[in-house]
């Protein structure tokens, strides 16, 4: 069915977004690109999960309750432990994407997301990590 690279280690992704449907769609897209997916519905829960587990990829929404995506991104980038973490900011609010966020994030995508482009990016990041 799907391309499961059994010989390689599993790539893991964390999705932080307060909208369940967005999370679900990203999950499906990432799962079809062989990612193991974890989800959180706000910034606080997201940073808890980041502290507990190692992730290869972070899909991050900006506008959320309990710590917005921008602040979370800044904390993550200040911490050496997350050096290898790739961050894709996904937002519907272009005006929230400041110069700083542009520089701190690896990629910025705008909603509604082109799923095929999102999947292509996920594959590229996965292959770059291996």
């Amino acid at each position, binding site marked *: 069915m*799907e391309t499961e690279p059994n010989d390689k280690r599993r790539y893991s992704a964390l999705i932080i977004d307060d909208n369940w449907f967005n999370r679900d769609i990203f999950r499906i897209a990432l799962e079809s690109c062989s990612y193991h997916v974890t989800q959180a519905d706000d910034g606080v829960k997201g940073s808890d999960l980041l502290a507990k587990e190692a992730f290869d990829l972070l899909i991050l929404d900006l506008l959320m309750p309990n710590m917005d995506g921008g602040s979370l991104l800044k904390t993550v980038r200040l911490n050496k432990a997350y050096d290898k973490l790739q961050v894709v900011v996904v937002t519907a609010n272009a005006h929230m994407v400041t110069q700083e966020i542009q520089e701190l994030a690896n990629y910025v995508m705008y909603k509604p997301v082109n799923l095929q482009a999102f999947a*292509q990016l996920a594959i590229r990041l996965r292959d770059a990590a291996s």
Partner: protein
Amino acid sequence: MEKEAKTSEHYFTVLLIEDNPNDAELIQDFLAQSDVGFKVEWMSGLSVGLERLSQRDIDVVLLDLSLPDSVGLETFGQVARKARGVPILVLTGFDDERLAIQALHKGAQDYLVKDKIDQHMLTHALRYAIERKRIEAALRTSEARYRAIIEDQTELICRFLPDGTLTFVNHAYCRFFNETSEELIGQPIFSAALRHGWEPPRVSISSASPVATTELTMINPSEEVRWYRWTSRGIFNEQGYLSEIQSVGQDISDRKQAEKQQLELAIERETVQALRTFVENASHDLNTPLTIMKSGSYLSCKLAEQLLKQTIALGTSMTPAVVANTAIEAISQTAMKLYQQAVAQDKAASRLQKIVTDLLKISELDRNTALDLQLHDLYSIATTLVELVSPLAADKHISLELERDLDLPFVSVDEDKMEQALQNLLENAIFYTSEGGAIRVRVYRQDQTVAVAIIDNGIGIASEDLPHIFEHFYRVDKARTSPGGGSGLGLSMTQKIVAAHEGRIDVQSEMGKGSTFTIFLPAK
């Protein structure tokens, strides 16, 4: 009667004002012979007579109208002003009867022509004058008393002629129609009444059944609709003809209101019973198709997800240039929408299934109140339930603590049902507690009961909602508009279960501070 008493022990004091000593002597003689006890005090002029009269112990005055210091009607007028209710008989000469009649018009009780007086006539006239005055006074007192009673009534009281002309109204009646008695009396009863939206009672009164009652609504001066019960009594003259009708209107709005509430209550009970039967039948009928729908929607979700994954996998196997030149992105968009619809449907089906399941549980509780009672430790049941709901709590970072008294008696419960009751309370507590909140479950002994309290620091319940939270489908606004959550039946189910165990449930809540639900069960 008093009259008899006076004969034996007392006497009537007669003040005789007469200038002619012969006439005075004659009269005194006559009265001395009378077997009625008369004590005569003779004054020979008006001024001394008036002076004596002002001492107030005179029963009757015999007044000669031609005195040296005053003459005729002027004499009578002066005496009458001083007399204050003491009857006055005037004495007049044979040629002066016209003057005597004028005195009668001015209030004299009677007149006697001097030359024609005999002992019997004099005695009779004096007695008659005294008695008549006394009866008049008694009547006046009793009428005044009657009027006071009638006037002070809060009931509306009126009298009217058979043609409807008002002859009497009391204060309450005037107040009700906001008109004075002068304005009302003499008017047809209908005119004021109709201005107040009241059609007066058409009562049928006859000498055989002189009383009739009727109940009707009237609009009072504050524009409120009030219920009045009118009791009308016909007053018949000696010939048996209806001469007047007295109607008494009593405000019976409170009683009517109570009757109305009782009726509404009865209707509500019937409605609830009908609804209960309908709900039970409907839930049974809905259950089977809903199960099919639910498994269908679940399968649709999985298939849509698979389709979406396959589409994405297909796209990722192509180069970006190829992707751009095919319809693959459009297909993934469609697959995504299909997935979204399937998920929404599946959630709705789950919600509906939860409602129907809870309705069936409630119907079952209503129908079959038999419990499978066993002795249990309420704490161990609470422990099981806390473990059951702990993933839900963890999801919202809510801490769950369990405490107990050391020495807890057993309770006699139907384990499955009590678990259900506690589960509903715990799920509610989690649902209405914000992220990072705390819920404590405390099992303790209180008097002859074992209590389990579920204490949250959630959003609380508004005091206006508190009386309704155990009603079927009652949900506070927030719960109704937010996704997920329960069926609106949890608390009413819990209450039924607790009641079946002869326990009670208590709730205390404060907006913004949290709620405490406590179940008390009799200790064994």
